[in-house]
């Protein structure tokens, strides 16, 4: 590890922690309906939304109504995205003529299963991409379907987190807010202004924004190269800010049109953690004790820092088998050393390790390098980040409510050890909350484990409908042995964690993978949201207990340690067998000189 690399990581973490409070205060004011500096400009827009949708701003919803609104909003969003993809051939803004008879030879067909997978993916804030953007989707679909969902799904996540916070903050209340109001405020005051500013900045640095047809260029060798174009900047900003991660191009943020310079790269990384970090402060502010928010931020930061240092160390030390045959693996002024396979030269090892950890910790899923090409241990960290529930900052809103799920569990298990019925923020944690937390935990881990299990053994007839020419589900893998297994495990972990990043190395655009990963995404999104909203409803109805010296303190280093321990132990106990058959054994085999 180089001093420069460590400095990049450190400065990043410091900036995120510094941004948490201003962001958190601003979001807290927005959701409390207080005036902010943006109100003179945007309040009319907000009111217009309510007027158009017939929403009564002051109407409150019970948790069941709130959950019903989330589900219906997501369902209609899904239908819209699905329809737009399937009909893109008949619709405008399709210069490459996808889904028509004039489509280029390398275009991917928009099959029902691909449209399903993509629609689910963007509605659930996952942004798993079974498609290649520049050879599959029209500009209209990219903008009206995907970019819109980047806003909507991110805002929905934030709304749900706010609803859960209200569960802790309110007492003896029957309602937890109004989904439509929370959604509107999140979009109007938070995501729109930030994305606009972000997009303008990215444009200024060279990210493209046009509706032009693809450029035909002649290379120095005299060959023709098609250079894809499109409205990239407008999608790029929200892709990061909304922790969506679905790239306009297949190469995602490794593509120079999406992420041209180290500066844009750094800003993009800041954009990912900006809202998740800020929400921890909003949480503390709303429950009336900012220390509670800092405690969550501390737990997230420690877990994140451990992850990034492990990835960086693993990637910088590279593959010992290459060193053995005389490849220089030490960093020097003229070469980066370590494992540069699958990494952009302009970003290097430290930034790629940092980006990979951020994107998987935050359920973003944008990538600037091939995680498949990481060393086994370097690849295990992103995998574990997703499997531990995407709570290390996590998705916008989703990270916070996921972390609160773990806080509930930590308080319940260890809280008993202070000799009182466990309580968190003055709310007793009882059967209902534990049931909901366990339900969420079981749902996500079960889809990861069961679908990975199924895909590692299921076999289809060659050229069958389900898996096409690949035959067995393992036929889609680029690698064998434990690494191939990791590719399957990663795909379902990414889906269920609503991350969307790809380990890659697996050709997932077949009905089998599109359907099962699609289901993983649905379970990973809604079977956490519904239990968490149910918990919010139950918590809101409870009395707030007085805090005494007999109350378990949930703001100090002890609780932070406990929370970190719970996240790691629950994740590790669930996935240790699976991980030991993938990156762990691969690591030991690598040390023995066997590669996959």
């Amino acid at each position, binding site marked *: 590890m180089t001093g420069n690399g460590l400095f990049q990581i450190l400065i990043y973490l410091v900036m995120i922690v510094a941004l948490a409070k201003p962001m958190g205060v601003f979001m807290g004011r927005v959701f409390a309906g207080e005036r902010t500096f943006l109100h003179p400009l945007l309040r009319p827009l907000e009111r217009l939304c309510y007027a158009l949708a017939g929403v009564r701003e002051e109407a409150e919803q019970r948790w069941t109504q709130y959950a019903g609104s989330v589900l219906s909003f997501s369902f209609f969003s899904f239908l819209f995205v699905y329809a737009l993809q399937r009909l893109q051939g008949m619709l405008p803004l399709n210069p490459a003529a996808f889904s028509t008879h004039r489509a280029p030879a390398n275009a991917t067909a928009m099959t029902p299963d691909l449209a399903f997978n993509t629609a689910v993916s963007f509605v659930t804030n996952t942004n798993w991409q079974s498609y290649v953007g520049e050879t599959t989707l029209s500009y209209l679909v990219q903008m009206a379907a995907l970019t819109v969902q980047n806003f909507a799904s991110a805002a929905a996540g934030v709304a749900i987190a706010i609803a859960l916070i209200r569960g802790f903050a309110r007492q003896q209340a029957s309602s937890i807010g109004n989904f439509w109001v929370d959604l509107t405020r999140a979009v109007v005051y938070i995501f729109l202004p930030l994305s606009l500013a972000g997009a303008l900045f990215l444009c200024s640095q060279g990210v493209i924004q046009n509706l032009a047809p693809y450029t035909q260029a002649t290379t120095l060798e005299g060959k023709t190269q098609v250079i894809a174009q499109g409205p990239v900047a407008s999608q790029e900003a929200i892709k990061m800010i909304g922790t969506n991660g679905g790239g306009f191009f297949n190469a995602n943020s490794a593509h120079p049109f999406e992420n041209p310079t180290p500066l844009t790269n750094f800003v993009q990384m800041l954009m990912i953690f900006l809202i998740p970090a800020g929400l921890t402060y909003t949480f503390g502010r709303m429950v009336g004790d900012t220390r509670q928010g800092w405690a969550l931020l501390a737990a997230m930061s420690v877990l994140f820092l451990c992850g990034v240092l492990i990835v960086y160390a693993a990637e910088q030390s590279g593959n010992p088998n290459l060193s053995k045959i005389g490849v220089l693996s030490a960093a020097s002024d003229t070469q980066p050393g370590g494992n540069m396979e699958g990494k952009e030269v302009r970003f290097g090892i430290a930034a790629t390790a940092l980006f990979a950890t951020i994107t998987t910790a935050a359920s973003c899923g944008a990538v600037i390098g091939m995680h498949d090409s990481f060393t086994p241990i370097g690849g295990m960290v992103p995998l574990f980040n997703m499997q531990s529930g995407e709570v290390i900052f996590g998705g916008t809103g989703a990270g916070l409510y996921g972390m609160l799920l773990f806080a509930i569990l930590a308080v*319940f298990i260890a809280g*008993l050890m202070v000799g009182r019925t466990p309580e968190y923020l003055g709310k007793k944690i009882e059967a209902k909350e534990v049931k909901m937390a366990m339900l969420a935990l079981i749902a996500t881990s079960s889809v990861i484990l069961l679908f990975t*299990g199924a895909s590692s053994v299921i076999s289809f007839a060659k050229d069958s409908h389900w898996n096409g020419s690949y035959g067995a589900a393992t036929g889609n893998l680029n690698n064998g042995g434990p690494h191939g297994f990791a590719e399957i495990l990663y795909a379902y972990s990414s889906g269920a964690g609503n991350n969307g990043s790809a380990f890659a190395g697996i050709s997932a655009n077949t009905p089998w993978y599109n359907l099962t990963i699609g289901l993983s995404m649905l379970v990973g999104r809604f079977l956490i949201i519904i239990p968490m909203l149910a918990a919010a409803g139950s918590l809101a109805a409870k009395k707030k207990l*007085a805090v005494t010296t007999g109350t378990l*303190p949930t703001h100090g280093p002890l609780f932070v340690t406990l929370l970190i321990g719970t996240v790691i132990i629950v994740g590790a106990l669930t996935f240790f*067998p699976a991980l030991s058959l993938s990156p762990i054994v691969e690591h*030991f085999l690598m040390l023995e000189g066997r590669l996959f």
Partner: protein
Amino acid sequence: MHTQTAPVRAASDPTDLLPKKLAHSRPLWDREILQRAIRESFVKLNPVQLLKNPVIFVVEVGAVITTLLLIQDFSRGSADAGFNVQISLWLWFTVLFANFAEAMAEARGKAQADTLRKTKTDSMAKRVISGGRTEKVSASQLRAGDFVICEAGDIIPGDGEVVEGIATVDESVITGESAPVIRESGGDRSAVTGGTRVLSDEIKIKITSNPGETFLDRMIALVEGAERQKTPNEIALNILIAGLTLIFLLAVVTLQPFSQYAAASAGSGAVPSVAVLVSLLVCLIPTTIGGLLSAIGIAGMDRVMQHNVLAMSGKAVEASGDVNTLLLDKTGTITIGNRQAVELLPIGGVTEQELAEAAQLSSLADETPEGRSVVVLAKQKYGLRGRELSHHEAHFIPFSAYTRMSGVDINSDHLRKGAADSIAQFVKENGGTVPPELREITERISRQGGTPLAVANGRRALGVIHLKDVVKGGMKERLAQLRRMGIQTVMITGDNPLTAAAIAAEAGVDNFLAQASPADKLNYIKKEQAEGRLVAMTGDGTNDAPALAQADVGLAMNTGTMAAKEAGNMVDLDSNPTKLIEVVAIGKQLLITRGALTTFSIANDVAKYFAIIPAMFMATYPALGALNIMGLHNPKSAVLAAVIFNALIIIALVPLALRGVKYRPEGAGTLLRRNLLIYGLGGLIAPFPGIWVIDRVVHVLGLA
């Protein structure tokens, strides 16, 4: 002769809220209980019964599967048969050990119930029929509303209220206390309990409960655990461990396809056998806490019982751990109940010695506790020995409500003590003058919450005796402990605010409620609850009943009225209000024990993974041997060691589950830190050496 004035109750070790010696305690390993528990462990193998405990049920299903597979092993003559037999056996032991833990806890209650039941003989009762005559009927024929007459030697036939007369009653059946108690009509000492015996006099009782519903019946049912329902926290914990069991079931079941892929791609090894997969599952699911959970709950109830407190439900015991506010009656709880002389303040040119002598002489015939305390003070502080004064030299003047003084006339001395204004009057009548000092001193004492008693000899005012409420020995320390535990104490007293404030400050209570009427108590409880606090209180009178019912924990005194006992959710058979503090400690201990064993159970899993995972995949991926950090001999001994450790740890922790983990009155942060270190970190580390040792033993014995 030396008389001890103050502490009635010697201060126990202030760091330990729970005294070691208890009236109803019994040894942990009682032979009879042990036999009963072992018998019950097998009865509990009934899967229908085990279904209540999902974790152990899963173990039993695993045991059945591996046992059935043995038939296959033997018919094929499998090389693994020996190993599989051992795994099956240990799985059955795991179930039995868990059953044993629960049976042990239950058997202790049942033994106690048996003792109680023996005392429940069907006595004959004298029922009052019209015209004041009585008829002899069996106690079981009595109904609520009947009147019966009991005289010396009679067993009281049912629960009731004394409506006429006064009697001494032996209640040792219920309380274990052999000293008789007085029961009389009217007031707060009118309740009598069926099964107790009248020792003297005759009383008329109105029966208040039907046969089978008496206090004794309920007590038997409670200690036996017949009506035991899972408490809210137990239900929540059950959900957690059932959920974890499901997650581990998924993790183990999916290992089958995972290993199929691994074996196929590595070209060596095979899918782990069912016995090994079941072993891994049983090791991972929280069997420790699953096996001990109900035992912890029952033992908690039992521990309350050993303190001679009858909790009407496990929920009440749990709630007592959550209490934030304790309402304590001043008299009898915080103070020893009687005012005591603590200081002699002479006035004018009188010496202390002279005042002491006068005070002592004037109190010699005073048999009230206050009077005796004056004699004792004089003796202890001024070395005056009690003198025998015969009636011919001294003429004692008893206290009368009219004069409001008492005293003695010896020779020419006319010694009087009493209320300041009465004494002033007395002095003036004898032609003396009262120095203004007297008023100043009496006022000062009043302000401090004490009671002044003036002393005079004829026309001379001598000084003032300072009487005050004496805080029970050790009380201050106990209240300080409660504060450390985050519990605030509120003193309830009928005294005026001035007096109350002084006692409150001396005892170190956080707050007080002066001139408190029962309605004030009720309102105070409601106010505390509205602010999110849980309140515990004690009470004995009928007018305490609403507050007892409102409080989250209401500890009624056994000497109290039936209404009070019905309203509370616990009854203290010793009628010692200070017991509330112990009950709170037991409630906390119960919850801590649950949390500690849950944490321990989950933390244990890490080591088991390191034992079993490398063993499972030794043939497929020998490289995973790097995870065998314990250096276990071979895959079979590793799996066996983990399973044996998992079973033995249940038995090893039975005493802890029954006794409860050590509880120290400390703040939540300190408690959590210590318990996390012991049970969290300890749980993480302990299995490593444990499994390592068992693996050696298994290897040496040639078992695998």
